[in-house]
């Protein structure tokens, strides 16, 4: 009997989507002042001049420029689920032009800091964060476009 494929599930609900093909982060936009939040604000706009409590979900841009980057050479502590043996991975801060904000994310598996430079164009992907008995837990990541 063939081994069933592991179940793929988001590591967190409602922060990103792959519906309709290309992966997108899901933010929220205030219907009154237009400012944008990631992760979503659900109950009130945080612009102190605004005070609205009506926010719409919006997908964020899939592309941005690399604001800065670093990596983890040592396994972070729990609740991070570190691979064993630990494989260092890069982390990116990516500036989204339309949203005028910077969003963090891990960098795609196998891409090291030597391959990154501030100002590069980056794109969003969905990749495994970790795997356990309940399946593969997926997360958004950035990779050079």
């Amino acid at each position, binding site marked *: 009997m063939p081994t069933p494929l592991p179940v793929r599930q988001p590591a*967190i609900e409602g922060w990103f989507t792959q519906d309709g093909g290309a992966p997108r982060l899901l933010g929220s936009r*205030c219907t009154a002042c237009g400012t944008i939040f990631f*992760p979503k604000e659900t109950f009130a706009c945080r612009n102190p001049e605004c005070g609205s409590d009506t926010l719409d979900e919006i997908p964020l841009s899939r592309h941005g420029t690399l*604001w800065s980057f*670093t990596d983890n050479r040592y396994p972070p502590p729990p*609740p991070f689920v570190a691979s064993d043996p630990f494989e260092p991975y890069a982390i990116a*801060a990516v500036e989204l032009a339309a949203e005028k*904000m910077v969003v963090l994310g*891990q960098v795609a598996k196998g891409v090291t800091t030597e391959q990154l430079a501030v100002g590069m164009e980056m794109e969003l992907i969905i990749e495994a964060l970790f795997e356990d008995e309940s399946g593969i837990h997926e*997360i958004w990541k950035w990779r050079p476009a």
Partner: protein
Amino acid sequence: MSHEVAVLGAGMHPWGKWGRNFVEYGVHAARAALAEAGLAWTDVQFLAGGDTMRNGYPGYVAGASIAQALGWSGAQVASTYGACATGAQAIDVARARILAGLCDVALVVGADTTPKGFFAPTGGVRQQDPDWLRFRLLGATNPVYFGLYARRRMALYGATPADFAKVKVKNARHGLGNPNARYRKAVREDDVAASPVVSDPLRLLDICATSDGGAAVVLTSLAFARRHTTQPVRLAGVSAVTPRYPNTVIEMPNFATDSAVGVSLPDVPFRDSIARGAYEQAGLGPEDLDLAEVYDLSTALELDWYENIGLCKPGGAEQMLRDGATTLGGRIPVNASGGLASFGEAVPAQAIAQVCELTWQLRGRAEARQVEGARVGLAVNQGLFGHGSSLLLRT
């Protein structure tokens, strides 16, 4: 100035990895501060404790835990928490009570016992807590954020890992003669370069350790101080400020910055606003400083602070460092105490420890690390979740 109070005494428990109860460090520091002030614990009318998140319930009620250990005296108490800015908040509360005329003598104490390794969030599964989520979803440790800032400095201003190493060499040298420092060992640039990378471009010796330690100050009204000393050190500014929306720099423990869509940027970015609050209260500016204690969580971050507190224009910090302007004997020594590079971080004690150092410097009692003729000193610090911390002291 009507908003000033006096720092009548300062005391510390040496930083280290002692593994004992944080209350013990707090009591040790409190007794040292009281002795320096020439006061007894029973003279204290108000105790402000800086909370620690890593020592269970006694840590959340640090004021009472320390008051009980000193012996219940009926003093009024408050316990505050603002991450690394905890001490500034506690000092601010004590200052406000004195200025309101509610008391003459206040004691402020912060102490911590830290676990080994990376700071981690508290346990359980908490999907609403950004501090838990940043570890869970990104593995974004504190050094990850420090690494992002360091790399950004390199890209914007041409900073190099050698510049970062120079900060460590300087602060290690300053800390050599500080009896309260945890690390009292000279470091060479080669040592930094030979230490392992933790979060590129930062190496182990670029990043501050986590330490045990305790610090305390006795604050009094100026009138009370004048009856006890001829030369009180004055606390002339306390800034425990929050950001203005939108804060467009990525901050711990966030996943993203605020968005600048639909809103205008504040006149002063958050990190520049921290010291500005203290300067404005004191009626002084960066040109008046004789020394500064800045929060060198990483070597690279110390360079950011030079600019944030107005010592130089953005991009000028590396030149200041290379010129020796921020070394003891230079124009404006930074982290004469040895900084976090020599101490490691004992969160609720750290802002108070900065005030201890400035107090001793302004009294001319800093021995081998004395800044000659020091009359005005600034401390600056920042706690995660949007806590600014800056204190300005003058003779």
